């Protein structure tokens, strides 16, 4: 059915307006980070200014942000790898085997997905102190693996279920050991799920703020914590803060443009079929 050209035009203009609303605040972050201090005091509607990387230089050199950038990258990448390995194994176990306690584990995992991080802040602070994990990057990694596993397991569970058992059995008959069945048959078929799971895990570990604030010190701070400390009652150095905001925003932006389809799969998993 052909649609009236006017209707199509209206459709696209509406999409453009919505896209503008979604993108504008993000553009503001980047634009402000490229402004000089004097230009920030100028009207924000004045879009013509001399861009400068001065703010980035200042935060990276004067404020030791390179260290926090390193911390964030370490925590993000290590948590993601560990979460994926453990999550894959658990999803496979849940999907393929029936054993005592399976339902209990399954339901507990499902409920853990939604625990508010603010609720965990106080007990985690106590437990991590006892375990001597406060102010250590590994302490953060452990926490992020734990809070990301429930979502990862359930996302991958759906993908394992879609792989017919017969395929695995056929590979086993052809002489593949369990490990090769897993890596050669299952993993390639689960690739979209793995992509979605790794993006979501990295995103949480990279973006998370409140627990990182409680659990880190000068040496182990992550980027969001460092950025928050720049907001003081006396005033905000917007150029610098937005330079940090941009650094924080860049990896998720890249992921979104590279793998939007996988992200949408992850968002709608469980609720919408197909």
């Amino acid at each position, binding site marked *: 059915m052909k649609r009236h050209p006017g209707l199509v035009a209206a459709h696209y203009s509406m999409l453009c307006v919505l896209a503008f609303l979604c993108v504008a605040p993000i553009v503001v972050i980047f634009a402000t980070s490229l402004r000089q201090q004097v230009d920030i005091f100028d009207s924000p509607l004045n879009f013509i200014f001399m861009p400068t990387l001065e703010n980035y230089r200042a935060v990276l050199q004067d404020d030791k942000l390179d260290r926090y950038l390193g911390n964030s990258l370490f925590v993000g990448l290590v948590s993601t790898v560990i979460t994926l390995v453990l999550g894959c194994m658990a999803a496979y176990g849940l999907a393929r085997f029936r054993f005592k306690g399976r339902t209990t584990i399954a339901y507990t995992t499902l409920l853990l997905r939604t625990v508010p*991080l603010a609720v965990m802040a106080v007990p985690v602070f106590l437990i991590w102190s006892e375990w001597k994990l406060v102010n250590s990057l590994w302490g953060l990694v452990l926490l992020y*693996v*734990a809070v990301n596993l429930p979502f990862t397991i359930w996302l991958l569970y759906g993908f394992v279920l879609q792989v017919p058992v017969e395929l695995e059995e056929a590979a086993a008959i052809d002489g593949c050991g369990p490990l090769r069945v897993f890596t050669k048959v299952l993993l390639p078929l689960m690739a979209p799920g793995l992509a979605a799971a790794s993006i979501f895990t990295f995103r949480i570990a990279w*973006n998370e703020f409140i627990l990182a604030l409680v659990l880190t010190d000068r040496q182990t701070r992550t980027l969001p914590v460092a950025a928050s400390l720049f907001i003081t009652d006396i005033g905000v150095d917007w150029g610098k803060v937005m330079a940090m905001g941009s650094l924080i925003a860049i990896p998720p932006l890249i992921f*979104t443009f590279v793998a939007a389809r996988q*992200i949408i799969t992850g968002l709608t998993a469980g609720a919408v079929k197909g």
Partner: protein
Amino acid sequence: MLYLGPAVLVMAAACLYPVVVAFQLAGYDWALGTPWDSARWVGAQNFVSAFTNPRMWSSLLTTLLFAAVCVSAEMVLGIALALALEHPVRGMAFFRTLFILPMMIAPIAVGLAWRYMFDAQFGLINAVLKAVGLSPQTWLADPTLAFIAIVVADIWQWTPFVFIMMIAALAGIDGSVIEAARIDGARWWQQTMRVKLPMVMHVIAITLMMRLIDAFRVLEVVYVLTFGGPGDSTEILSLHIYKTAFIGQQLGVAAAVSVLLLVVVAALSWGALRLSNPMKGEPP
């Protein structure tokens, strides 16, 4: 189980155990910075002080109002936009990519962006108000306006989520059903209200539950945007917990409020689970 062992161990130690400890801590008087050994068992004392604190009640009220306003606005906007724009057009994949940006970016960065835009002196919003001849507002210094600010930021961040869920759900409807309704003489409004929306009611319900759960978990955007202020006008429950624990230094009382928040979210999660269970239809 060999396959589940490591994952279960990590989740039990670093996710379930803290939740259990939250319940335990709620019974102790423990000040920040003192060793755990000096904590005293006080029974229900923390709950009493938490629940007789008017600030806790105003915080609970703020949270409920915040969740109600944000989630209903997001649902109505998201569903309406999805219905208006469900027709597949070329380039939709690109637009969808732009639409998920607000929820992918760090909440801290989102808070920064909106704090800057709402800034009374340099903010974009006041500049636009001035340009069209309206008087600028001191957004983050006025209790009502500050509340509007955190609501606007949340709606900006999460309406696209509802939109994308609904677009996916509407795309899944069998076209012949709509066609049949059309041939039977159903107009657009009737097709929408009587056929399409009932067919995606399941997805609407799940989306609503997911949004409600997340609305009660919000913390970071508000932390950056207003830090609960001015006064305690935007101090949502999760921020109240943080402040009680790490500024008021009353860890036990904070744990007691945590238990309250946990119960609310757990009840919602249980509801969500009833609606959408990934193990549905499996033999036990």
